[in-house]
Structure formats: structure tokens, C-alpha cells
């Protein structure tokens, strides 16, 4: 089993705007991942105060799972939950994952800003645009496979 990634976008009012697992998940796993991601919102808010950088590196660790965060200036948060299989030797190392995540999140931020420029999109509402979804999938394929 390779590394598993779940990507979420949370608005500034802690409202989930977008959620995309990058590998097929079983039902019970989905709940655990959502729980961990929501718990990490508090860690993000703390980490935000300590650094000038928009990318907040690894904000919490649960065994083999890491949570990476990125904050946009308006308060929007991108959260990537990553679960590695330590026995798998072909899996990328943690620092490689971190670099990939940094580039991935910077590009997602560009996408998000373009979405905000759409005058028919109401900010802080769930993102339902198909083209946004396709582009997120393309970026995920580029950085995480």
C-alpha cells in the first residue's frame, strides 16, 4: 500500500469548502481522516502566529500520519493529510513529501485566487466547479505519484 493523501480546503470560518482524497478510501478510514484534519485546524491557527511563511510545514504528527498546512492571506487554509507506510521502501521520504507539498500548495493557491476572481463564485461557499476539481487532480498527479 503506497502513501495515502487527503487534501482539504477550509475557509476562514472553519467551514469545509473542498475535500479530495487522492486514493480510494474505505468508509471507516474517511471518518478518522476527517477527525484528524479538523483537529489540526487549531494547530494551524497557532502555527500561523509563529511564522511569516504561508506554508506551515508539518503541523502535527499521529504515528505515521503527518498533516501539512498552508494559509492564504485571507484566512483560507489548505490541509494535506498524508499517511505513509514505513515498510514500503519505494515511498518518498518525509522531506521529499514536504517539498512536493510546498509546491503543490503554492499552485493550489494560484488556482484558488483565480476562482475568487470569478464574480459568480461566492467566497466561503463550497467549491463545486468541475474545472477546479480537474485541475486539482492534475496537480496531485504531478506531485504525488
Amino acid at each position, binding site marked *: 500500500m503506497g502513501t495515502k493523501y487527503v487534501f482539504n480546503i477550509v475557509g476562514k470560518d472553519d467551514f469545509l469548502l473542498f475535500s479530495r482524497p487522492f486514493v480510494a478510501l474505505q468508509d471507516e478510514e474517511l471518518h478518522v481522516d476527517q477527525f484528524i484534519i479538523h483537529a489540526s485546524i487549531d494547530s494551524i491557527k497557532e502555527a500561523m502566529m509563529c511564522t511569516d511563511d504561508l506554508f506551515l510545514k508539518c503541523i502535527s504528527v499521529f504515528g505515521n500520519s503527518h498533516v501539512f498546512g498552508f494559509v492564504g492571506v485571507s484566512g483560507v487554509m489548505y490541509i494535506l493529510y498524508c499517511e505513509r507506510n514505513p515498510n514500503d521502501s519505494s515511498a518518498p521520504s518525509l522531506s521529499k513529501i514536504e517539498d512536493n507539498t510546498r509546491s503543490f500548495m503554492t499552485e493550489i493557491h494560484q488556482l484558488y485566487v*483565480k476562482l475568487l*476572481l*470569478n*464574480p*459568480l*463564485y461566492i467566497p466561503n461557499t463550497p467549491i463545486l*466547479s468541475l*474545472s477546479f476539481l480537474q485541475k486539482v487532480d492534475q496537480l496531485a498527479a504531478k506531485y504525488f505519484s
Partner: protein
Amino acid sequence: MPTKNAQNVLKASEAAYSKLPKVSSELLTLTYGVFIQQIFKTTYRIEDVNAKLLEIGQNMGLRIVDDFLSHIVFERCSSFTETCQILVGSGFMYFFGVSGTILSWNEENSQCVFLLKHNLLNNFVEIPAHLEGLKYNNMLCGVIKGALNAINFKVKVEEVESTVYGANDDVFSISLEELLHDETGE
């Protein structure tokens, strides 16, 4: 294909456009989008929004044609085809900064299809699911309809393809329905 008259007018309109004061395109794009949303919030029905946009465009078109003719002087057009060439090429150039290109005419020369690249009103716009069926460019259609109406052509203008629904460029069609005659008072 464009007549000599149309080419001269295009040059004149480019020169006139470069002298006009300019505004940021993002301001225009965002204002137009929010404007459409506000109209939607008054009725919540897409057909009403489309009709309202057409009406607003027609009101604009009536006045715009006089403005255009007062700034750019040219000879009388000899046919409907020449009128459309000047409208699509120079009219859009003068007010919008981009010139449209006519793609084709039908056999009787009463319907033309034209392309507008780089339509700034549609920058970054994508229609969400709850606004499906919205004719985002209907105001432009109304402007053309109102302008041609003022010079006695009764036309039907529609958008054929639009970037907001994923097409590459905006394509419109103008169909001549009838020629109106100046009415004298009774």
C-alpha cells in the same frame, strides 16, 4: 472582404480608442459579474435575468450609436453587410478595445456569425450549477440590437458560444429580421 470604408473606419476607431481614458479591466469584469448577481437576486429566475440584460443592452445601444457616429465620421454604408462589418470591427474597437471578426455570412447575406476574442467581461468567469442557462453576454447582444434598431434594422442577436461555458472564444450571430421605415407622426 471588408470594404474600403470599413477599413478606414477601423483605423479611425483604433486611433480614437487610444486617446480615450482607460480603466482597469478587472474592475469592469468584477462589476459586471456582481451586477448580474444582483439582478438574479431580484427575481431568482434565469429567463428574467437574460431578458433584463437584453433590455439594458438595448438602452445602451440606442445611445451608443449616436456617440460613435459623432466621434468617427465616415461615408454612408451601402448595405447591411457593410454596416455589420463596421459595427463588429470598429464599434467594438472604439468601445471595448478589441475588434470582432466576422466568420461567415449566410446565402442571402441576412445573417452573420462573428467572433470576439479576449472578451474582458468574461475573464475568469465560470457559470456555477445554480445559474445554468444564464446568457452572460446578453448585454452585448442587447447593445448590438439596440444600436441596429436605432438605424432602422430590426435584428435578432444571440450568443452562439461563450467562454463562460468552456468554449475557446465568444461567438455571436446577428440575423436581420426586417428593415424598419422612419415613421412620420400621424
